[in-house]
């Protein structure tokens, strides 16, 4: 029997799972990728656009051309999924029946969820670098900026690439230093978390670096309103942070079609799934990869990559009527750009927090420490993305399971989980 697999979304997760499945399934099984537009954006590149370090054209390519021969591509938005009938209804009227469905539609930016944010954006007071138009507008605004207060604000969690706003703060420090006006710019990082990052060891390191770079840190700030006129972020509990220019990471949610598909998503439009098998709780023939999933892992490209290896095996097992035996350990790997040609690297999973040491083994890149080598790693990553990740190839020596060799476990994690500990190095403005 010919099997039909529909992959909703042709971004990082959708592209690599379709390519992996093409190799794993029988040649006459049909794989169709659906996306609403034809441009594949290398999202990690967005961070560098506001600082003029990367051109927009250099980080977008044709979506369809990233798919292997033998993978079908259908360009249309999704209207809804009928999980009982196992059918996807597209906006162009097409109905696609499936034996297995992969949700790979990522996360949507929802600025409308925050009072005043849309207006502040329209009036050139607030910007986001989480999409290309926003990143380009921010580039122009930063170029004009010659002094004042910049607030980098994460409105709510979860967000894509949770380290990106911290990286933005590091790079902003570097950018204004190289323009010679750092002393006229006040940088503040405003987060709903109780520290710069959730994991204790990593939080200590990143909070310390923000402090060293003179970036103020305001924690447990749940933004309720952006006041463009008054230049203020206002939290739900009535605290305020003033700004002349706000760099916001808007609320994230699932795509709108998830809300139109009864039983598919949770309250925020993400897809609840078994965090090990990646099978959706909604239905046994629905699977999820990447940012669209409501699992404990970060919303990051490396997660989609590591999930891909596991998910391809599980979907193949499912289509053969066999139990799902492949298990995702939550492996995440992120470069954190820190400016001045340096970067840090973190590597962790569901059970192991980011620690110091080396990756992927005792000889390798330094973990949780600034180095030029990591910066080169971050730059080289774009090549890996187009030529290894998207084609669904395994990177030699870097598998889905997080490596333990090279990691310094235990010692620095003492006191992990205590809130006072996780606030080390933080400082709030009155």
């Amino acid at each position: 029997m010919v099997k039909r697999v529909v992959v909703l979304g042709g971004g990082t997760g959708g592209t690599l799972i379709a390519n992996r499945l093409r190799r794993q399934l029988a040649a006459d099984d049909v794989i169709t990728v659906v996306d609403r537009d034809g441009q594949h954006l290398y999202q990690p590149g967005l961070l560098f656009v506001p600082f003029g370090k990367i051109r927009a054209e250099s980080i977008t390519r044709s979506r369809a051309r990233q798919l292997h021969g033998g993978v079908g591509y259908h360009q249309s938005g999704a209207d809804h999924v009928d999980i009982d009938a196992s059918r996807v209804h597209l906006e162009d009227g097409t109905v696609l029946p499936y034996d297995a469905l992969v949700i790979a539609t990522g996360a949507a930016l929802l600025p409308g969820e925050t009072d005043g944010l849309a207006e502040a954006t329209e009036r050139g007071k607030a910007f986001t670098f989480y999409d290309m138009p926003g990143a380009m507008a921010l580039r122009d605004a930063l170029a004009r900026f010659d002094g004042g207060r910049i607030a980098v604000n994460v409105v709510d969690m979860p967000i894509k690439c949770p380290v990106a706003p911290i990286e933005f703060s590091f790079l902003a420090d570097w950018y204004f230093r190289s323009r010679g006006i750092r002393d006229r710019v006040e940088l503040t990082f405003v987060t709903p978390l109780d520290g710069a990052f959730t994991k204790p060891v990593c939080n200590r390191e990143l909070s310390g670096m923000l402090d060293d770079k003179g970036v103020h840190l305001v924690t447990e700030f749940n933004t309720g309103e952006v006041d463009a006129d008054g230049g203020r972020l206002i939290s739900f509990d009535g605290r305020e942070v003033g700004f002349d220019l706000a760099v916001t990471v808007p609320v994230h949610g699932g795509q709108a079609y998830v809300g139109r598909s009864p039983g598919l998503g949770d309250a925020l439009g993400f897809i609840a799934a078994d965090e090990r098998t990646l099978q959706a709780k909604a239905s046994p023939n629905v699977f999820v990869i990447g940012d669209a999933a409501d699992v404990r892992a970060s919303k990051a490209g490396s997660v989609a990559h590591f999930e891909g290896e596991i998910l391809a095996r599980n979907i193949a097992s499912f289509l053969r009527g066999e139990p799902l035996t492949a298990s995702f350990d939550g492996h995440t790997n992120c470069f954190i750009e820190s400016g001045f040609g340096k970067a840090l690297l973190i590597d962790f999973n569901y059970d192991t927090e980011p620690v110091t040491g080396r990756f992927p083994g005792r000889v390798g890149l330094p973990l949780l420490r600034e180095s030029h080598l990591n910066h080169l790693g971050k730059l080289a990553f774009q090549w890996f993305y187009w030529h290894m990740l998207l084609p669904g190839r395994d990177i030699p020596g870097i598998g889905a399971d997080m490596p333990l060799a090279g990691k310094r476990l235990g010692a620095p994690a003492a006191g992990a989980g205590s809130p006072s500990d996780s606030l080390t190095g933080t400082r709030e403005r009155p």
Partner: protein
Amino acid sequence: MPVKTYAGTEVTVNDEGFLADPQQWREDMAPQIAAEAGIPVLTEPHWRVIKFMRHEYAEKGTGPSVRALSKTSGVSIKELYELFPKGPAKLAAKIAGIPKPRGCI
């Protein structure tokens, strides 16, 4: 881990005051936990949120975030902050005897 006495029963709590075992929680412990957290009286809307937190925890194994709590319970985020000042998800979880909602990473 510290031991506390709520409604005449000894329970173990973690460093932040969350019950170590959600099974030990009983409704008559809630007013005392709330009072310690600065909420002198639990009104009907408080109870609606507390029961919702218990329900979500039983179903999903974790308490919801503020935004998810608002979307599913129909209580606006502003109102949730009036009921549970500072941090509704965290505070309501503590009073409902469930673990601190897991931080998103």
